[in-house]
């Protein structure tokens, strides 16, 4: 099995986000970039499949810090790593890169493409279904378990409300991974240093092939705080207020203790 896994570097949106001057993007200068968490799980799933079935894993990374993440991928067990050159400081749109990923999958004779189910920047659509449709391969998004099954795969997908569906599918295929079968492993600094010698291949982005796309006119930050009341940051005061609020709403402790 030849696996192609896609690693997208995205802005760390855990902290404060500020808008760029033209209002059409976020200010990327002060941001740190990190591997899309779902892509991290996709990489882990790829390595687990490699360990289970002896597949070869090719990792393709895009965005700021791609080289660093590719070294990490090599340290975790990727056989080949390729940095896909993108425009500096640009948002990585899954719609834009899908054609290149599909072409890479063909070029590398991949029979399985893995990527994270979503990314924070895929407002124009998700990568797995795009690549699947472009290749006309079956695709399943939101997987939390992938096992080799004869010549194909046995894949479990989260469907919400705790419902999980298991599928059998033949290869080739594309999967949008939500959670890897096992949590992503830790790679030690010494393994990372060793992997820093791994040669990193280069590739360039091809045209998306789409004639029409939606456009961002303006970004804005949502109104803060909503309409709720701010109780402040003093735990004692907040506790006092909450006792009253619960009581007013008929939600006192003993009300339920005697339920």
């Amino acid at each position, binding site marked *: 099995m030849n696996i192609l896994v896609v690693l997208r570097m995205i802005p760390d949106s855990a902290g404060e986000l500020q808008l760029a001057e033209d209002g059409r993007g976020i200010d990327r200068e002060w941001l740190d970039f990190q591997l899309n968490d779902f892509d991290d799980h996709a990489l882990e799933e790829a390595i687990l499949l490699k360990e289970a079935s002896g597949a070869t894993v090719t990792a393709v990374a895009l965005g700021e810090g791609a080289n660093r993440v590719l070294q990490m991928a090599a340290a975790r067990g990727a056989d080949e790593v390729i940095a896909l050159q993108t425009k500096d400081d640009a948002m990585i749109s899954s719609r834009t890169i899908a054609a290149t990923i599909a072409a890479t999958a063909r070029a590398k004779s991949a029979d399985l493409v893995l990527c994270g189910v979503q990314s924070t920047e895929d407002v124009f659509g998700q990568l797995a279904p795009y690549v699947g449709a472009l290749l006309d391969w*079956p695709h399943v998004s939101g997987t939390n378990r992938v096992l080799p099954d004869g010549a194909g795969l046995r894949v479990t*997908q989260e469907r919400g409300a705790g419902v999980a569906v298991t599928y059998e*599918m033949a290869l080739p295929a594309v999967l949008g991974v939500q959670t890897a079968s096992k949590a992503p492993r830790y790679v030690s600094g010494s393994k990372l240093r060793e992997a820093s010698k791994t040669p990193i291949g280069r590739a360039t982005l091809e045209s998306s092939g789409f004639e029409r796309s939606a456009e961002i006119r303006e970004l*804005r930050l949502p109104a803060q705080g909503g309409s709720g009341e701010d109780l402040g940051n003093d735990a004692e005061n907040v506790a006092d207020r909450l006792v009253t609020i619960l*009581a007013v709403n008929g939600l006192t*402790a003993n009300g339920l203790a005697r339920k």
Partner: protein
Amino acid sequence: MKMIACTEGRSDRIEAFSLEMIAAARSIATAGDEVIAFFAGQAAKAAASSFGAADRLIAADAAGSDLIPAEAYARLLRDTVAAEQPDLVLVPYSANGLDVAADIAARTGWPLLSYVNEIKREGEGLNVVAQMYGGKVLAECVVTLPAVLMVNPGAFEEAVASPVDAARVQQFDAMPAIESSRVKMVAIDVPDYADVDLTTAERIVCVGRGIGDEASIDIARDLATILGAEIAGSRPVVDNGWLPKLRQVGKSGQKVKPRLYLALGVSGAPEHLEGMSHADLIIAVNTDPKAPIFNVAHYGATCDLFDLVASLSDRLQASPGR
């Protein structure tokens, strides 16, 4: 303008957000426009008796298959799109929708916008507000038609359920598409709600990543016991194995509507908000004043959650009669 609103169901029930998709299409429809509800699944009958807000219903009946693989759903939708030539396709942001929306966009070459909250007509096209960066940023976008939109559940009020005029229901068999699908469903695991059913719980104490570690869950659990509430968790907490999957609130967990929802250290990703924003009383505690959970909370506090839980537990235990 002709619009297709994609709807879903499991077993013999339709998903509530199906009526939201029809409402979303309806909200921008003007005289002469047509809203077509597209349904694929076992609940074709329920669809026919609920989707009256649409002008027509095209239902692929999958009698005998509890769920329909997205591969088959997308193929059936593709055939419908080819036959109807709509200007707009609305897909719900759901597990199924995630596979369907970009698939149809790629195969038609139409533009796609995801995580859509608002839709307005603007000239020949649409003006759409979509979420980015986990709901921290809103993007106002413009899109020309025909196009595909993946719409957030909860963004539109459900349309009123009423039967579709029988003459306007076009039904056909979905089984050939399911049988020829390259993705075969082999098992459906539906959780056993014997132990806990958050969807019927009257009070919920939900812990998020801010709880820090597994041991601290007990502190929240003690408060839940005092309050007579069920303990629940956001996705990171459940992913870490600190709480069972059945106690997860959000898109991939349970959608809840309790009288009291106390969120401790929950940041409030859109997927989480989708599962709880309809609770009667939402109280959120998070040290980050910019956490999106405060956008839906009725009361918010930015104090340390451990301090608060301790103080609140003390007070509730000291004067249970209040």
